[in-house]
């Protein structure tokens, strides 16, 4: 009988904090830049320099710890992790081992239709290393220390995942929590969120853990899925062929969709951790903790529930609105400016993403002004502009680089529905006269034919009357007795 296998996964997630400056010096943390232009004697580790903790990092870390339901260590401190590598300027990384800022937390996720609690073992603060740029042509390696000293949080989960779907839901949850707090943008592609996967397999029903491997260098959500499936199959293959999985660190190659061994447990470096003597232990006061608690925003889940309750939105729309904090906030601002909640939700989950897609812009880059967007939605609701025109205005609004007036744009482009009574009457009369067959159908009970007639009238009117009004007039005209003078 073929055995069934259970996959056991634990994650180490690194999230770059979006503080303006680095963790131990005043250098900018902006992504990219000419090599070695965003560094100073401190983050270059020049002799005699000393680290000084950026208070913002501590603040962000405490908020993150609270959001992950962790216990905050009120006497946290830093340790040195010693190893040699050219991207590590001091040959040690300032990290936390003995007294991490947060421990024993959890996050609740929904995956494969089920709710699940993932426990957090610990979360700590540390500095990022620089980057090495290899020039194949010159056969030379250049270090770039711009990234060195960027603040990171490392979140270590318990081995609670059983599928890649759970892993993805967890990463999405962390991304949502962190972006809601504004402490990290969690973009895997830019490397501001990275994950190492610890994975083992065991026969279904077995309670002891199998031997695990750690897979590093995974740079996208899709790659995580691939890496998990690949490692799971590899381990099952090893075991079912009579072999033994060895505890090792593996490196994911996304081009080949496979991982290769980096080093075994026997070759694991001894990091010689010890307390960082240059940074005194940090006492976290009750006031500091309280301020952090109070600064926590209403997170996505709570907000979704409130949207359903307060605005009567369908779950699905509410869920899509709260996926990004900016969207959720824009929704509430637009409603506060007088747009109907349902229309606003519809616009934000359907029209805005659609228009952005045609503009090839990402949602992160669009920040439409709430009052202008509300204006556009209101006018559309009232039939003062046709839907195709409204979407054109939306496109202009979303791509506008400077303050954009919806009202002005509609007027300047002649999009306002005029509701000219005599033009409307004329158009209705002409359409009825010109389409006797459709009129006959309608009057004989095929009321759907009115759609065609309204369309013709709208064409005559070049969209300058509200469709609802045209509908109303057309209906009235059709109910009149046929003209005897014809």
């Amino acid at each position, binding site marked *: 009988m073929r055995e069934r296998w259970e996959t056991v996964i634990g994650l180490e997630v690194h999230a770059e904090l979006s503080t303006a400056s680095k963790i131990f010096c005043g250098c900018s943390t902006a992504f990219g830049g000419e090599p070695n232009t965003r560094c100073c004697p401190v983050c270059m580790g020049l002799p005699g320099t000393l680290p000084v903790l950026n208070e913002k990092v501590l603040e962000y870390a405490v908020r993150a710890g609270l959001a992950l339901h962790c216990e905050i260590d009120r006497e946290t401190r830093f340790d040195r992790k010693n190893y040699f590598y050219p991207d590590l300027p001091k040959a040690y990384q300032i990290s936390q081992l003995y007294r991490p800022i947060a421990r024993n937390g959890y996050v609740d996720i929904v995956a494969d239709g089920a709710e699940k609690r993932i426990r957090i073992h610990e979360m700590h603060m540390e500095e990022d290393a620089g980057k090495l740029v290899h020039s194949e042509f010159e056969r030379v390696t250049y270090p770039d220390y711009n990234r060195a000293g960027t603040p990171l949080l490392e979140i270590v989960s318990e081995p609670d995942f059983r599928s890649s779907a759970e892993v993805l839901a967890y990463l999405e949850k962390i991304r949502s929590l962190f972006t809601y707090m504004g402490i990290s943008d969690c973009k895997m592609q830019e490397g501001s969120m990275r994950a190492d996967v610890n994975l083992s397999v065991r026969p279904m029903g077995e309670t002891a853990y199998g031997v695990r491997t750690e897979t590093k260098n995974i740079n996208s959500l899709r790659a995580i899925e691939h890496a998990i499936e690949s490692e799971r199959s590899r381990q099952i293959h090893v075991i079912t062929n009579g072999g033994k999985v060895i505890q090792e660190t593996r490196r994911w190659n996304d081009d080949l969709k496979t991982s290769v061994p980096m080093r075994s447990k026997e070759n694991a470096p001894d990091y010689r*951790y010890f307390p960082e003597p240059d940074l005194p232990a940090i006492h976290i006061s009750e006031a500091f903790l309280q301020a952090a608690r109070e600064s926590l925003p209403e997170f996505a889940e709570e907000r979704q529930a409130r949207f359903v309750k307060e605005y009567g939105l369908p779950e699905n729309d509410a869920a899509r609105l709260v996926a990004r904090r900016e969207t959720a906030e824009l929704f509430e601002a637009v409603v506060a400016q007088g747009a109907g909640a349902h229309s606003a939700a519809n616009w934000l989950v359907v029209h805005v993403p659609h228009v952005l897609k045609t503009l090839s812009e990402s949602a992160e880059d669009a920040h439409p002004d709430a009052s202008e967007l509300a204006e556009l939605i209101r006018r559309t609701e009232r039939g003062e502009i046709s839907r195709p025109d409204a979407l054109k205005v939306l496109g202009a609004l979303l791509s506008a680089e400077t303050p954009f007036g919806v009202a002005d744009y509609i007027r300047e482009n002649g999009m306002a529905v005029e509701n000219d009574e005599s033009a409307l009457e004329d158009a209705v009369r002409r359409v009825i006269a010109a389409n006797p067959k459709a009129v006959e159908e309608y009057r004989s009970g095929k009321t759907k034919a009115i759609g065609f007639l309204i369309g013709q009238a709208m064409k005559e009117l070049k969209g300058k009357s509200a469709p609802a009004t045209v509908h109303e007039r057309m209906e009235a005209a059709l109910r009149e007795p046929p003209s005897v003078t014809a």
Partner: protein
Amino acid sequence: MEILDLTAVELGERIRKREVSAAEAVEAVYDAFRERNRNLNAYAAFEIDPARTAAQAAQTLLDGGGASALAGVPVGVKDNISVKNCLTTCASRILQGYRAPFDATAVRKLRGAGAVPAGTLNMDEFAMGSTSETSCYGAVRNPWNVGHVPGGSSGGAAAAVAARECFCALGSDTGGSVRQPASYCGVTGFKPSYGRVSRYGLVAYGSSLDQIGPIARDVRDCAALMDVIAGADPFDATSRTFPDAGFLDALNGDIRGLRVGVPEECFGDGAEEDVKACVQEFLDELRRAGAELVSISLPFVRYAVPTYYILATAEASSNLSRFDGVKYGYRTEHYHTLEELYVRTRSEGFGKEVQKRILLGTFVLSSGYYDAYYNKALKMKQLIVDGFAEAFGRCDVMALPVSPTTAPKLGESLSDPLKMYLSDVFTVPANLAGLPGLSVPCGFDRNGLPVGAQLLGAVGADALVLNAGHAYQLATDWHTRKPEICRPPLGGDVAERQRGEAVENA
């Protein structure tokens, strides 16, 4: 009287009175360096252009009415304290050619007060040593007898101050590196409370123990330097501001009623008879000045040396990892792989003593040994901190020798490293407990080598310690004694003669 016979404070007064210019003062030091450095090898380098520029800046400050006690006074700087655009090499091959792109905070403050950083002083490589023999620039010699070592690791600073090759200097003290060479060379050296002076720009040896401290002719000069360099620094998270301040102003010489603790452990078999006799005289003098001597016991002191060598080397092994040949300093010429680059650069760039301490520190931090060594030493450190805190309940300051011996002969110590480490027994406790410690000259042994007495205070009691030393110097003249070597015109000849004697003795 030669200008270099003036103390720093006296020179400062003359400069303010326009009797001497800042430029003349710096040229006098530079002349002494050029004419006499070969005698003692006290300097690692002397770059005159930046010193002249600093003297001009000081003169401008003076002319604008800036009148701090040390305005215009040249200050020698140990080779492990960063001076902007100047060589800062820790007397190590691995930092050959390295120029710091910034000033250490202490140096920046010196400039702010109008003092003039002038010359970098020789030392034990990376401040690891008690003899100043491990420098890549060669050994420093003791001005009282060039066949002997000047002590270390700030041996260049102590020798230069003693031999009138500079007025005063900044040294660094991790386990006694200011106090012990000051003692061996018959000058005054002060290690401040940990955190009192910013370590920013001091190339780290043992970060939790390192402090920058002054070496000068007398306590007044030390106090004047402390007035300039002390204070919390936003660039050093371990620095603090203590409530007492105005060290020079606090020197009233009144120690009536001061309770001076005399630790019985420090006057036992460990110390040479001549040393004990001189320090006993020192105690008598304090009593005559109105102090009350109190016998105390510091039983934990016997654990200080092993505790120190575990903690200092552990931190050093990490602190010195950055010297890997990648970004600055020395890089081996022959390598094919990254590992070869590291191994060869560090094997060729670091001297033997430094390599030994890096290995020791790496060992005590290794997994499997961490708890037995490093963690135990951390706990011992805490016991020493608590023990001192308790002892300072019974006295205001403590008096003890600086070193169990006077300056050993050149070459003698490195052949018996364990003995050399154990000779740190009276100085390392202050570093472990973060206490202020002062070394003042208190006589000579039968061979004419200086003996130093040490005063320790509770954390933050720096002014109290300095004042006790000042009271002693008001009553004695040991600190004004001048080695034969700097009495012109014999200078060079004395050195030659003593060197000859040293060869004969060897």
